[in-house]
């Protein structure tokens, strides 16, 4: 699908909605189902520009791009004005970079010859590549670990914005976890995503320092019905039943925070919560597992992605259907069974994760897995219960190790040229 310039994102999503509509399932350990790198219909204008402005931040309902650079920051200043200045500067840079233009007044080559260029330049000549920049606020921005109210925000801290609990089997590395702020940069070109984070980090020196960052090279979820289902590094389709942007009623019910949700944080209305988990996969042991066991662990067929109860990829799984010896065809310990809304009070989440590999470890094992990202209306109902179940009972857990964890509150979008990301928190 191609649209001429000037077509709004809402309009585009509406058009995309004319495609196949599927009911959805969320999967919390992120290793549910789907993938394809095959060509597929474009869901934006030919220029590849995603509108920066809107009621919600871009990069959530936006059809998932192919590449990710995610960064968590610690705020190094103790001056609230410096923090607001930073958010304004980030907003300005995000506004121009997402349009495919360089950051700063002079860009990469137009400035004074004796000064370092405003923009670092590696995205010159590249299209916008559907770049989106999404920012979030971590629990420690509102209240330091020692309880200090760092920026006068403690009374506005959302109720659900707390460090995620320790789940069974977690092996968290503090150097890959938490953060005061986060930036999710997604684009179809990895250089465009890296350029965005690099320039935001540079703009932030003096106010923030990068705490950790993660590259992702292949989306593991579809967030639009116009997209095919991609595969994760286990080789299975991931995100078949993911919540899709076209399902507006479920987006409102499961992803967007409503004004009445939290009396302490009406500023978060129109925003969401972002859960980030760095999930390493035991690649080599998985690869030595029989196809029979791999499919039993996932609960789907590896080729087409159909549930083991039969049908095609998008057929509803039949958890009651029994095979030989009366055992359910979809094992009760399978990922599909445990992550299904029927087992989770009907909750769904919008997953937006990416495959990652950071080379190999000292033993020659692939340091790889899934960088799980999900947007939910309330982590206390939409993530923590499901992840507790999966960590305890999911047969897949044997092949997974959660090494990083973070939770952020994602403020609503910027409505016009004068606004800035986070203004509802700081100005009202």
């Amino acid at each position, binding site marked *: 699908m191609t649209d001429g310039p000037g077509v709004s994102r809402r309009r585009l999503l509406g058009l995309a909605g004319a495609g196949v509509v599927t009911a959805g399932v969320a999967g919390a350990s992120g290793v549910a189902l789907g993938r394809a790198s095959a060509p597929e219909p474009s869901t934006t204008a030919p220029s590849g520009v995603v509108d920066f402005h809107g009621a919600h931040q871009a990069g959530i309902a936006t059809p998932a791009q192919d590449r990710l650079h995610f960064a968590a920051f*610690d705020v*190094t200043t103790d001056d609230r004005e410096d923090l607001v200045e930073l958010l304004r500067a980030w907003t300005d840079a995000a506004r121009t970079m997402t349009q495919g233009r360089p950051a700063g007044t002079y860009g990469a080559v137009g400035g*004074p010859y*004796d*000064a*370092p260029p405003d923009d670092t330049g590696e995205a010159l000549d590249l299209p916008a590549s559907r770049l989106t920049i999404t920012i979030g606020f971590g629990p420690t921005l509102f209240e330091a670990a020692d309880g200090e109210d760092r920026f006068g925000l403690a009374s506005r801290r959302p109720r659900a914005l707390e460090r995620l609990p320790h789940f069974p089997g977690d092996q968290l590395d503090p150097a890959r976890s938490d953060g005061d702020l986060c930036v999710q940069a997604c684009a179809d070109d990895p250089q465009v995503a890296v350029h965005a984070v690099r320039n935001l980090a*540079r703009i932030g*020196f*003096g*106010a923030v*320092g990068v705490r950790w960052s993660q590259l992702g090279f292949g989306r593991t979820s579809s967030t639009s019905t116009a997209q095919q289902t991609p595969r994760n590094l286990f080789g299975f389709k991931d995100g078949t039943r993911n919540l899709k942007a076209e399902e507006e009623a479920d987006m409102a019910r499961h992803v967007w925070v409503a004004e009445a949700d939290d009396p302490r944080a009406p500023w978060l209305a129109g925003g969401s919560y972002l859960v980030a988990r760095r999930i390493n996969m035991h690649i080599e042991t998985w690869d030595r597992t029989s196809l029979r066991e791999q499919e039993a662990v996932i609960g789907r067929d590896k080729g087409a992605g159909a549930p083991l109860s039969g049908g095609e990829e998008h057929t509803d799984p039949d958890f009651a259907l029994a095979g030989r010896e009366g055992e359910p065809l979809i094992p009760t310990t399978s990922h599909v069974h445990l992550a299904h809304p029927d087992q989770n009070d009907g909750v769904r989440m919008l997953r937006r994760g990416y495959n990652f590999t950071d080379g190999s470890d000292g033993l020659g094992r692939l340091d790889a897995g899934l960088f799980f990202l999900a947007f939910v209306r309330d982590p206390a109902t939409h993530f923590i219960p499901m992840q507790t179940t999966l960590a305890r009972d999911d047969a897949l857990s044997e092949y997974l190790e959660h090494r990083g964890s973070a939770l952020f509150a994602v403020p609503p979008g910027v409505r016009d040229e004068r606004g800035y990301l986070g203004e509802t928190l700081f100005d009202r």
Partner: protein
Amino acid sequence: MADTEELAERVEDLEFTPDQLGNGAKELLDEVATGKVTGEEEIWSHTDLWDFQANVDGARVAYEDLRPILQVREEAELDEQLETRFAALQELLDGYRDGEGFVSYDELTDDQVKELADAVNALSEPLSKLTAAVVL
């Protein structure tokens, strides 16, 4: 000793142009950012904080020399930012003073090294704008 005195006199007589001072200040901090803050440069003697302080002192002198030009050029914002961030970095360094010098670099925790690195980045970014501000 005579050599040292002669050297001191010659240094007194040296004159630098504003762009040399501005670029020199930036390069002194670049050295800190790439070598000293990582503790790699003095991997055996662990005296990195001495060198760290010497480079900051050098950059600070160059900046002080250029301040009158910043004021004439109405670059008050850059001037204030440099002043604040030089002071913030110095305050961190002062926290590691030990007798005549500094604690050994291998006594610093990872968090302390990260804090120093953030303060170096915070100063280096506006410092990289100093040359253009004084020569244009």
